[in-house]
């Protein structure tokens, strides 16, 4: 049995690495955009600004190291190393989930992992998203999820949340749900009083710290940084591919405190046509998810209903971002990532109700779709998701419809 498990793990690792190479070959353009390199020029030297942690780290390392890293080459290789690390950490998370799940759910877990990999693999490799700050948020989120899964050193979730917020305050809407929902679930469902108390404390402090940081960064952090403008531009240029490019709106917003709402008008027009089109293209998956929620919640007592309802309701944290900002590609990815990761997480924790709902949903799918793997193959043509655009394929269809 053990030998068989080792063999399956080996096959999974090899398949995952081959797939990684496959997607790198297709989507990696050996290039970082001006937007993503400019992020490394944002530093706390110019005030306690949002998205300043990475740039602060970079400037500090530049001072400490015997060689300069304020150049494109250093930023590019660092971002590449982080991207590979993220994908390997994601693989480790999958392996841990499968190992902890019951053997009878092995097939379902593999299918969910395959589906999630279709979205995850190409997301941060393409030129639009390579080096984007989101990847650090997902690394930290995975670390927190692994702590929750193993039930070890969970207090580290609080500093993880703080670091994530310092990297990008969007964490509170895009990723915090992945950490808060499992803790909320445990608070309601666990019979162990000590455990409940632990999660109330950790969850409460986590929620409080990220909320305070979000409010600060959103309303009070924009630097009156006109005096630093030239220095920041010079750093941003030094880090860029051609020594000249940098992102104007990013610096205007974070350093000069200018509102960029008007600049995003074009992207809002894309969002308006892409959103309903994406709902149409992904409607089979939406119907499956709604039916799955129905199976999961049906016949539950009030407390159980509340606990299990939190799992699908965790998606709603993305709504404020969709109203205020324009990166619908990132939000679509965040939504898919949340749904599939929560399924994997709860099945790894051995939750009988989630396992039952997944099994019943699989049977239901086979009734109307005799080749269920088409649900995986279909998605392969509609990814990767981008940042402002959801995906090129969604955009093509949206333009024809509207």
């Amino acid at each position, binding site marked *: 049995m053990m030998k068989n498990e080792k063999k399956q793990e080996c096959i999974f690792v090899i398949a995952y690495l081959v797939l990684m190479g496959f997607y790198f070959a297709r989507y990696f353009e050996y290039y970082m955009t001006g937007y993503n390199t400019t992020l490394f020029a944002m530093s706390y030297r110019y005030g306690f600004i949002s998205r300043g942690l990475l740039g602060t780290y970079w400037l500090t390392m530049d001072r400490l190291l015997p060689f300069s890293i304020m150049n494109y080459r250093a930023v590019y290789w660092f971002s590449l190393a982080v991207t590979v690390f993220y994908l390997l950490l994601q693989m480790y998370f999958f392996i841990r989930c499968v190992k902890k799940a019951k053997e009878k759910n092995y097939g379902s877990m593999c299918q969910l992992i395959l589906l999630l990999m279709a979205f995850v693999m190409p997301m941060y490799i393409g030129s639009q998203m390579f080096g984007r700050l989101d990847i650090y948020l997902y690394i930290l989120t995975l670390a927190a999820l692994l702590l929750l899964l193993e039930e070890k050193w969970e207090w580290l979730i609080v500093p993880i949340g703080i670091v994530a917020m310092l990297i990008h305050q969007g964490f509170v809407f895009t990723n915090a749900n992945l950490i808060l929902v499992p803790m909320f679930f445990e608070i309601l469902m666990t019979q162990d009083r000590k455990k409940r108390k632990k999660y109330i404390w950790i969850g409460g402090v986590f929620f409080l710290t990220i909320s305070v940081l979000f409010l600060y960064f959103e309303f009070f952090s924009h630097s009156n940084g006109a005096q630093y403008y030239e220095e920041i531009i010079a750093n941003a240029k030094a880090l860029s591919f051609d020594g000249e490019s940098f992102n104007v709106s990013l610096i205007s917003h974070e350093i000069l405190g200018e509102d960029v709402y008007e600049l995003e008008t074009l992207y809002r027009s894309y969002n308006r046509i892409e959103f309903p089109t994406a709902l149409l293209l992904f409607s089979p998956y939406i119907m499956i998810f709604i039916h799955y929620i129905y199976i999961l919640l049906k016949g539950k007592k009030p407390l159980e209903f509340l606990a299990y309802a939190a799992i699908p309701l965790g998606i709603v944290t993305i709504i404020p971002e969709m109203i205020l900002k324009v990166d619908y590609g990132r939000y679509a990815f965040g939504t898919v990532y949340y749904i599939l990761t929560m399924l994997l997480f709860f099945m790894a924790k051995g939750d009988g109700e989630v396992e039952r709902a997944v099994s019943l949903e699989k049977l239901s799918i086979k009734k109307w779709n*005799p080749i269920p793997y088409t649900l995986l193959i279909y998605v392969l043509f509609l990814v990767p998701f981008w940042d402002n655009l959801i995906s090129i394929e969604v955009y093509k269809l949206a333009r024809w419809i509207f």
Partner: protein
Amino acid sequence: MRERVKYGFSILAVFFAAFLYGVDEQLSFGAGLLSLLFFLYVFFALYNNKNIQRTCYILLFTGGIFISTLWDSYYVAAKERYYLAVVLIILGGMLFLRNHKGKLLMESAVISGILLVHTFRDGVSFGFDGFGPKFVALILMLPVGIMLWRSMTGIFEKTVFLLALGVHCIHVCLVQPSTYWILSLVLYLSGLSLIFVEKEGVKKYEDWVWCIPCICALGLTMLRGEDVNYYCAGAWNLIMKVVGVV
């Protein structure tokens, strides 16, 4: 019949996604006609074959490559689509023959013949340019080739298969651009797969094994021309960077 209709709808949904993946600004009447011919081929295969699950997988992989290539504006204007139309009609007709050896021989002979006619009639150019991505494309077709080889018994089947493969591979490697030749090879392997999936006593593979040709098929989607496609060109570029040439 109702089950086969469900299979058909599932396949069409994937083809629509492949269409969105490959389509460019320009919609083409020729691509539309060829797509209809391909749907006819799919219909005949679903109607004729008994091993419906495996047949559907084969059609999905083939259609994913074919549809995404056909609607890409880079390929839309190519005159090779007339040859592809003939190939599709032949493949569709083959499905109704009962004898496996006969099907294999007819299909191999006809498609190889069409390749040779195209070469000599249209005076296509020869050269080793872009050999790297073509090599990657051939490697991606290797798993299906191996699965087919293992399904064949006897010297006759294997010889015919090798000869036809040889004609295709020479054209893929030498003739510019290679899109038509790769598509022709894909259709040839697809046609053979549909034959052999019905043969009695042929080795049946577990579900997870079908992931391999699925990924390989994805790597051949949206064939474009000199560089084959983004996957093959990117893979060759990555190999060259790792090796240190670029």
